[in-house]
């Protein structure tokens, strides 16, 4: 079902974007944790009062009474959504779309590995990379919490928050993956496979600003991560199950379609 040779190759292909995105997220995480101090919190609250729309768009609303809430407000509205998304778009391009667009998929298929094996390997790579990214970020977050504010971080809630975020990002990756499996040209993939998640992301930002546009939240996948509620200790099992189900359907359809399609390679 899986080609180990190709899996190894995927590691090499995605290492650079992974390190880059991880470094950026890591930096933001450490900075945000570092800035967790009551004076600064007051300043940010002032910002929230002065320009509520802008802060709300970034998901930065509410008052942080603990480090986990602080991190949720200032990391999980924007940074932890946008940068993994960038990673997903680049990764799926490298693992699936690039092979189809350039025609080098012909090399892979001419080796006697079935389409199913090739595409399942790429799907597994995609999921594993997301797990690795979120795992690495979680470790970085826990360490910076322990180092800068020992005992302040509610590790359990932080883990739940990151697991839910992982499920969300895997579902988003599934969407891009499906588009790559259907498209023949990279520009179509960028329009739909990258455009759609970005549109969802923008809708999320706009709906955060509240009032009439709040209803937009029913049309974006990002609503399925109730980060604020998780930080406050509320469960999110239903959302997680929905996300997992979505991910399975999206990846499954991509794999199914890829095996049947014509490839102009």
């Amino acid at each position, binding site marked *: 079902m899986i080609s180990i040779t190709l899996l190894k190759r995927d590691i090499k292909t995605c290492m650079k974007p992974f390190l880059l995105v991880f470094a950026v997220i890591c930096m933001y995480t450490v900075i945000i944790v570092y800035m967790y101090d009551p004076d600064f919190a007051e300043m940010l609250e002032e910002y929230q009062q002065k320009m509520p729309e802008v802060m709300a768009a970034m998901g930065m609303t509410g008052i942080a009474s603990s480090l986990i809430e602080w991190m949720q407000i200032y990391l999980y509205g924007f940074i932890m959504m946008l940068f993994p998304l960038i990673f997903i778009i680049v990764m799926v391009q490298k693992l699936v779309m690039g092979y189809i667009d350039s025609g080098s998929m012909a090399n892979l298929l001419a080796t*006697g590995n079935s389409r199913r094996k090739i595409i399942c390997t790429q799907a597994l790579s995609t999921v594993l990379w997301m797990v690795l990214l979120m795992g690495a970020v979680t470790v970085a977050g826990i360490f910076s919490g322990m180092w800068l504010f020992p005992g302040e971080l509610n590790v359990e809630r932080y883990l739940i928050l990151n697991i839910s975020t992982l499920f969300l990002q895997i579902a988003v990756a599934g969407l891009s993956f499906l588009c790559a499996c259907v498209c023949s040209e990279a520009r179509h993939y960028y329009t739909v496979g990258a455009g759609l998640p970005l549109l969802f992301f923008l809708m999320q930002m706009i709906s955060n600003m509240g009032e009439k546009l709040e209803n937009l939240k029913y049309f974006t996948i990002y609503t399925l991560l109730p980060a604020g509620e998780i930080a406050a200790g509320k469960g999110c099992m239903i959302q997680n199950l929905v996300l997992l189900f979505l991910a399975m359907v999206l990846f499954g359809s991509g794999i199914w379609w890829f095996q049947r399609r014509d490839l102009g390679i």
Partner: protein
Amino acid sequence: MSDAIELQHVTKDYGDGKGVFDLSFTVKEGEVFGYLGPNGAGKTTTIRQLMGFIRPQSGSCQIFGMDCFRQADQIQRRNGYLAGELTFPEDMTGRQFLKFMADLKGLKKYARMEELMERFELDPRGKIHKMSKGTKQKVGIVNAFMHEPRTIILDEPTSGLDPLMRNRFVKLILEEKKKGTTILLCSHILEEVQKTCDRTAILRAGKLVAVENLSDKRQNLEELFLHFYEEEGEEEK
């Protein structure tokens, strides 16, 4: 001899007269089969169907009795392929790429690979995207032959090669022929077709116009081909 490659009434219509229409021919086991035609005649479309990249709209396409689309993986295990437009991963060297391909093919030994590299004087150390057209072509040739395939599909195999290497390539084909390998060869270089092919099919506008046994013919090849190639132009007039 049994049939190695068999196409029966294969149609793939891309519109505007592009594609192949009701195409039927067979290549016998151990035969070197030339496949010629003007640009856009449908040669690559045929090859894509043999490789299982695209599915015929109607008709059947088989290699050793296996369906080219549904059983592509089984066929490809014993098939060599050289694409007309070679694309390689940007970041790999020639050797890295060939080893990657060999591993994907499940090769245990690299002896044949090394031997072929030597034969074509291929220096596999540089990054592929910096290689010249001819050097890339050599990488493609080594890749197509290194796993001792039973059938080989070649699309313009010698483009970019110098006359010396072209000559070595012809020798390689003749050696494979002796071993009993079945080869489908698309080429515009008539000399190499005449030297290697047992029979040659000529395709025009997606239809087969002739299958010739070239070894019987003493007549000028070029005239023969121009005769078949140009017919379409005359019809348009």
